[in-house]
């Protein structure tokens, strides 16, 4: 079996449009949350959102490449070109080798709604233009990026709700571990617009602390009242260790564990048993025990029910070791389909720069989070082994463990 390493990473998020800016935001505990008035006009219960700039791709990509790209593909493209630069992976290498892509994405609501509006208005499908089909499919990211980068390896989109990004890295890890591929672009992307989150808002899942947006997302805090939707794109380049050494690529970390499970119960409510099974499987896969984990990047989204269950699952396995825990969603909001990938990027940045990013807005624990060692202020600490959780609707759970390469 191959060892699997991460040789590149890139990010486009509400914390910054490149690794350096995002690292500084994480270190300073800076929130990327704001208020989108358009959502109020549409009757949203909460207009809170991660504030993300749309990339300007004109000049970077030709028209034919751009017309089929919906918002998630644009973010993913920006994250991927940064990741390839970090990985020192040039087009010449990609053309001569089998490089794949597995990317998490679970919606293109805006592109789909706009296409439907055009059909209704024009009563003529040709007038949708050539890009609509490639924008309105969930695999808009992988269809477009595989074409732009001329990829020849595995090529698919993974849709697993808010665990999509994490599972995409897990699947890439398994493919390389078992020798089926040597290099895979993995990641997660999430559109951020007033069309996307309406149905989620309708469940009263979002925080309504609109008077103070940067304070609204407060995972694990006693007074949390819901999540803040967010998004962007995050990419990691996975490679077999042999390939990375042969290329002389930088090795940012090793992926040592992937665990997964399904709750087998409610469509939106999480459960402790499912999460514990995912955590345990990841630890077993990595050959580690809970005491070996230096830091946990929690899934915790700031919902009353979800954070409670995760706190119980984490305390069951890690409670006695007082393992440091934080949820970077306190700063980013919930990056949904992207979150599992972006939180690996955030964890890598912490690992590289010897700090734990804070769980901002954590002021008072509840009875469950009181059992965890939640880091509410930036802590300087060397990190060798980091665990990252992602959970999604339908009871899908994913846990990744990354380790400094030795």
């Amino acid at each position, binding site marked *: 079996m191959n060892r699997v390493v991460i040789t590149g990473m890139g990010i486009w998020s509400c914390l910054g449009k490149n690794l350096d800016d995002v690292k500084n935001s994480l270190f300073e505990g800076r929130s990327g949350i704001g208020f989108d008035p358009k959502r109020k006009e549409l009757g949203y219960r909460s207009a809170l959102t991660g504030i993300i700039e749309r990339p300007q791709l004109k000049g970077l990509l*030709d*028209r*034919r490449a751009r*017309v089929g790209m919906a918002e998630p593909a644009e973010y993913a493209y920006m994250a991927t070109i940064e990741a390839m630069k970090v990985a020192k992976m040039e087009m010449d290498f990609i053309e001569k080798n089998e490089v794949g892509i597995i990317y998490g994405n679970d919606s293109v609501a805006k592109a789909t709604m706009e296409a439907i509006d055009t059909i209704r208005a*024009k009563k*003529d499908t*040709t*007038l*949708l*233009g*050539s*890009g609509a089909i490639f924008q309105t499919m969930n695999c808009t990211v992988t269809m477009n990026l595989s074409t732009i980068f001329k990829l020849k390896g595995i090529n698919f989109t993974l849709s697993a709700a808010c665990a999509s990004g994490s599972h995409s890295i897990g699947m890439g890890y398994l493919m390389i571990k078992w020798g089926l591929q040597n290099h895979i672009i993995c990641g997660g992307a999430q559109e951020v617009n007033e069309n996307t989150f309406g149905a989620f808002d309708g469940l009263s899942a979002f925080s309504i602390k609109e008077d103070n947006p940067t304070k609204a997302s407060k995972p694990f805090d006693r007074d949390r009242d819901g999540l803040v939707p967010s998004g962007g794109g995050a990419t990691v380049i996975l490679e077999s260790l042999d390939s990375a050494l042969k290329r002389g690529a930088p090795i940012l970390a090793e992926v040592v564990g992937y665990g997964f499970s399904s709750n087998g119960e409610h469509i939106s409510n999480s459960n402790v048993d499912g999460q514990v099974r995912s955590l345990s499987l990841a630890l077993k896969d990595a050959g580690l025990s809970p005491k070996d984990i230096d830091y946990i990047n929690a899934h915790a989204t700031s919902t009353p029910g979800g954070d409670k269950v995760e706190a119980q699952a984490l305390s069951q396995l890690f409670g006695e070791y007082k393992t440091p825990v934080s949820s970077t969603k306190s700063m980013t909001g919930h990056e949904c389909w992207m979150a599992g990938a972006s939180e690996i990027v955030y964890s890598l940045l912490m690992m590289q720069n010897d700090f734990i990013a804070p769980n901002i807005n954590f002021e008072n624990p509840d009875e469950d989070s009181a059992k965890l060692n939640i880091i509410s202020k930036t802590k300087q600490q060397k990190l060798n082994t980091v665990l990252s959780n992602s959970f999604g609707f339908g009871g899908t759970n994913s846990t990744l463990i990354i380790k400094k390469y030795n």
Partner: protein
Amino acid sequence: MTKDEIIEKSNSFFIDEFEVDGSKITLNANLRETLDLDSLDYVDLVVVIESNFGFKVKGEDFLNIHTFNDFYEYCFNKIQEKSHVA
């Protein structure tokens, strides 16, 4: 709409939408080669014609459009037909 107006408007969307170098657009230049059109691009050409000139091109009409001049003539005639019907 005069023919000159059609030429000006068409060249504007060729340059903006199809990102062609304006100096390459001449009356006798080949439309498909100059704009580097593939089968998908023709669908987008239908869209920009409809949004700029208000008529829908039939796919088979493109068979007789070779040069930019053919394109301008075709659009001029279609707009004339439309105004006579109106």
